[in-house]
Structure formats: structure tokens, C-alpha cells
């Protein structure tokens, strides 16, 4: 049973570019959340998707957007990349009607030059 999978594992971009990160949730999970983890910090909540809609959003600018597909997989898009966007981007999934904890993927390491 595959857990949460993310791609790519590493990515290097330059300022001003756009990036798309992908996440496949754990089998049976229907809710996907994205987090940004700067070096030496705890993950910060970006947003959550359920039923293909953004349900909740953290304190991130509109440059950060997302999408959820009918198969529950999700994408995180970041436009006009800044140096400060360099971080580990984590995807977490859960079943909405369950009180079970979120399962995390191993993240995408994004470096902005």
C-alpha cells in the first residue's frame, strides 16, 4: 500500500519562474494539504483540498495556487518565484471523515537561484 508520493524530489528554478509540484495521496485518502518547510523550521500550512476545491488556506500569497483532480491527486503551483520560496514542500493526506492523523510524503526540495 503506497503512502503519499510526491514528485519531483528535487527541483532548481530561477527567480521569476513558475513551478508545479505533484502529490498522490495515500490510498483511500480524499483530502490533501500542502505545507512549506523552511530549513530549520516546522512546516507551515499553505492550503487544503477536498472534493477538488480549496477548503482552507494559510497565510500565503496568491502566487501559491493548487488543484485537486478527481482521483484525489493534487498539484501545487507557485508563480513568480522568489528566493524566499526555497524550501521543502510537503504534501499530507487523510480521509476527511476520519479523525486519523495526516500522513506526509517525503516532500519536494525546491531551490531558487
Amino acid at each position, binding site marked *: 500500500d503506497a503512502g503519499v508520493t510526491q514528485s519531483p524530489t528535487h527541483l532548481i528554478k530561477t527567480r521569476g519562474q513558475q513551478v508545479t509540484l505533484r502529490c498522490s495521496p495515500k490510498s483511500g485518502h480524499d483530502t490533501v494539504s500542502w505545507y512549506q518547510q523552511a530549513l530549520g523550521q516546522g512546516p507551515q500550512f499553505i492550503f487544503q483540498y477536498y472534493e477538488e476545491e480549496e477548503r*482552507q488556506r494559510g497565510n500565503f500569497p496568491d502566487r501559491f495556487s493548487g488543484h485537486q483532480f478527481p482521483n484525489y491527486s493534487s498539484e501545487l503551483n507557485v508563480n513568480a518565484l522568489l528566493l524566499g520560496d526555497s524550501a521543502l514542500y*510537503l504534501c499530507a493526506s487523510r480521509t476527511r471523515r476520519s479523525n486519523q*492523523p495526516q500522513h506526509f510524503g517525503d516532500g519536494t526540495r525546491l531551490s531558487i537561484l
Partner: protein
Amino acid sequence: GESVGLHLPTLSVQEGDNSIINCAYSNSASDYFIWYKQESGKGPQFIIDIRSNMDKRQGQRVTVLLNKTVKHLSLQIAATQPGDSAVYFCAELSYNQGGKLIFGQGTELSVKP
């Protein structure tokens, strides 16, 4: 704003000793607390959780204590092993705020053989 903080950023223990990692949270309305372990290059891995109507929960070699009076959470690891070396995060969640997890900065646990 809401935050979850840790008293100690680093903790070094001898193999076989018990470890205690502490966490202070600020949202008295949080319903649910989780401890995650994050190894280098990996995503956060669930260790143990506790709901706000409990004050203690035990797992295999781990115990979580919740003191709502002083808004304090701790993780106890018995007979610490080298494989326990990692960064440990506490996280809190309020059910009326959906699945948004609020993480602390983390404590790095180093186990000396």
C-alpha cells in the same frame, strides 16, 4: 497569532537513557495534538497523538503527556536508541478549523552510542 513552540531546540542523550521533549502551545481551543518524527531527507512521520480530553497516552516506548492547565505537551521516549535520532515536532489542530496543523519549530534529538 497561533503558535506552537518548543523549549529546547537540541537534546543530546546517551543510548539507553530516557528522553523528554517538551512543547508549549498557545491555542487553548486545540482539540488534538500530534508528535511527528522527521529524519533527514524525509517527511514527518507520525509517532503518537492525544486528544484534548486525555492527559496521557502510551505507545511502544513513547508516552505523550498533555497538561491543558499550562498548555504544555511532552513526548517521552524510553530506552532511547540511535535510530531515534531525528527532529521531533509537536503539532496542534482545532477541528473547527479543519485539517490545518500548526507545527512548532522542532527539537533535534541526538543519541550518543
